[in-house]
């Protein structure tokens, strides 16, 4: 029988006020998340023979070869490594790559890990990309990175389709409602559309509450064969389809500022592979670096037509109790955003598919779509997951 790759474990580390509880270096927090995911899977670390890592840590230095460093730190000798870094969507791509490696027999147990201690280290900056190579044509103008590029996309979307700042605010408000149900979320107090509109202007038309948080965080995913999952008694989550794409990094090279081309390409492939329609998706977890990211992603994934995202999210449609449950852990906007957020989309989707999401559990979730976005609306990777 053909090998089927499945997800068997997810893990993260507890956060308090956006910082890792108990502190720790970026290697320590990744080790804790990895152990949590392996314990969740019921699989020992010594069985891990595939390691997939992307990060922003230890550069220059040990982070230049992140899987090699992390493998050493964890005391394992992987025979499959993937350090694909396409931004915050890297982990959705890692699931696809691990699935192919497992199904081909290139590895048996794959561990995907991410961690960041940027908040504890106060290491996040808005202007910090060196003006070399392609970026010599960006940084000299004082563009706040990455918010300035997203702001220009939002402005163009408003120009072409009449999208409003209030419609973007709907997303921030709905996501905060989900966060209020998540004890690990950094920001849990309810907010209103007026609060979003009145929040500090950052880079017009985006305001503070349109922007993701800056927090610590670490997460991990364990994948293996369906057969091995059975042998370990762990509950498998099936991978029905996946796809990835990237189009640019420099915002000046984005093909169309009002359309998320990478998400269109990635999700089309994932839907084709899964052989399911949009109606079959019970839950969506999509990257919310900024409110505009979500709106453009929903259009690109095909849940509404181009330009209709504003109307689609209106009336708190994506909030708890709404018709379209979205970013149910509180997202990067209100739960956590440790630099590259995509792994937490997967962790939440698996918890929802297993019925382990506590107060924020959505009823009858059988199929979930996860979509990561990386860079400055640069890359996209989609995974469609199912619990049966």
């Amino acid at each position, binding site marked *: 029988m053909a090998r089927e790759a499945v997800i068997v474990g997810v893990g993260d580390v507890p956060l308090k006020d956006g910082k890792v509880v108990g502190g720790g270096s970026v290697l320590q927090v990744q080790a804790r998340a990895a152990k949590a995911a392996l314990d969740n899977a019921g699989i020992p670390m010594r069985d891990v023979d595939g390691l997939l890592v992307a990060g922003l840590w230890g550069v220059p230095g040990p982070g230049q070869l992140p899987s090699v460093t992390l493998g050493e730190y964890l005391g394992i000798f992987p025979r499959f490594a993937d350090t694909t870094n396409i931004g915050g969507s890297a982990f959705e791509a890692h699931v696809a790559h691990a699935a192919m490696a497992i199904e081909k027999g290139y590895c048996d147990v794959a561990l995907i890990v991410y961690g960041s201690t940027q908040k504890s280290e106060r290491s996040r900056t*808005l*202007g910090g990309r060196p*003006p070399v190579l392609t970026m*010599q044509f*960006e*940084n000299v103008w*004082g*563009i706040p990175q990455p918010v300035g590029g997203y702001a220009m996309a939002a402005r163009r979307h408003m120009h072409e389709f009449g999208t409003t700042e209030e419609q973007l605010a709907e997303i921030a408000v709905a996501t905060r409602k989900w966060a209020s149900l998540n004890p690990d979320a950094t920001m849990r107090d309810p907010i209103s559309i007026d609060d979003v509109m009145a929040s500090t202007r950052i880079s017009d038309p*985006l305001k503070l509450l349109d922007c993701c948080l800056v927090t610590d965080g670490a997460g991990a995913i364990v994948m293996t064969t369906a057969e091995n999952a059975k042998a370990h008694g762990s509950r498998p989550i099936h991978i029905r389809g996946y796809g990835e794409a990237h189009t640019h990094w420099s915002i*000046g090279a984005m093909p169309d500022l009002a359309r998320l081309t990478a998400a269109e390409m990635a999700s089309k492939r994932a839907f084709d592979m899964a052989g399911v329609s949009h109606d079959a998706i019970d839950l969506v977890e999509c990257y919310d670096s900024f409110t505009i990211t979500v709106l453009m992603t929903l259009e690109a994934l095909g849940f509404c037509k181009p330009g209709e995202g504003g109307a689609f999210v209106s009336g708190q449609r994506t909030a708890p109790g709404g018709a379209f449950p979205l970013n149910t852990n509180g997202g990067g906007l209100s739960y956590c955003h440790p630099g590259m957020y995509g792994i937490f989309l997967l962790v939440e989707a698996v918890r929802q598919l297993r019925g382990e999401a506590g107060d924020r559990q959505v009823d009858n979730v059988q199929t979930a779509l996860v979509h990561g976005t990386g860079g400055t609306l640069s890359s996209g990777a989609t995974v469609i997951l199912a619990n049966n």
Partner: protein
Amino acid sequence: MSDTATYEKPQPVIDPGTKPFWDAARAHRLSMPKCRACGQHHFYPRELCPHCHSDDLEWTDVSGKGEVYSYTIARKPAGPVFAADVPYVIAMIALDEGPRMLTNIVTKDVEQVRIGDRVTVRFDDVTPELTLPKFTLDKD
């Protein structure tokens, strides 16, 4: 004009592939590669045409005219060196020759910028070695 040592904002690390652009800017010309195979300009400068992937390229001066494709008003600076400029406009200009380029729009009233506004290049000699092509609104 500042001297090179006292201009504190990011300065491009000019490389052989980009030197013709920055040299032209110092001479107050806006120059970019044009493809002899497909006839299209592109920006930023590359070794192969990003449209048809030909290597048959030539540097050509462009008009320095275009329109605002999108923009943002920075209310928070991209680091302390831009703090004194807030609020300032970062814009993506669709040049009449086709390519889009990121730049600043220099205007007394940042609130009046709109997508579709006509713009014209102006050259800011920020140091003896560096000139930045910025744009002004034709309606200003």
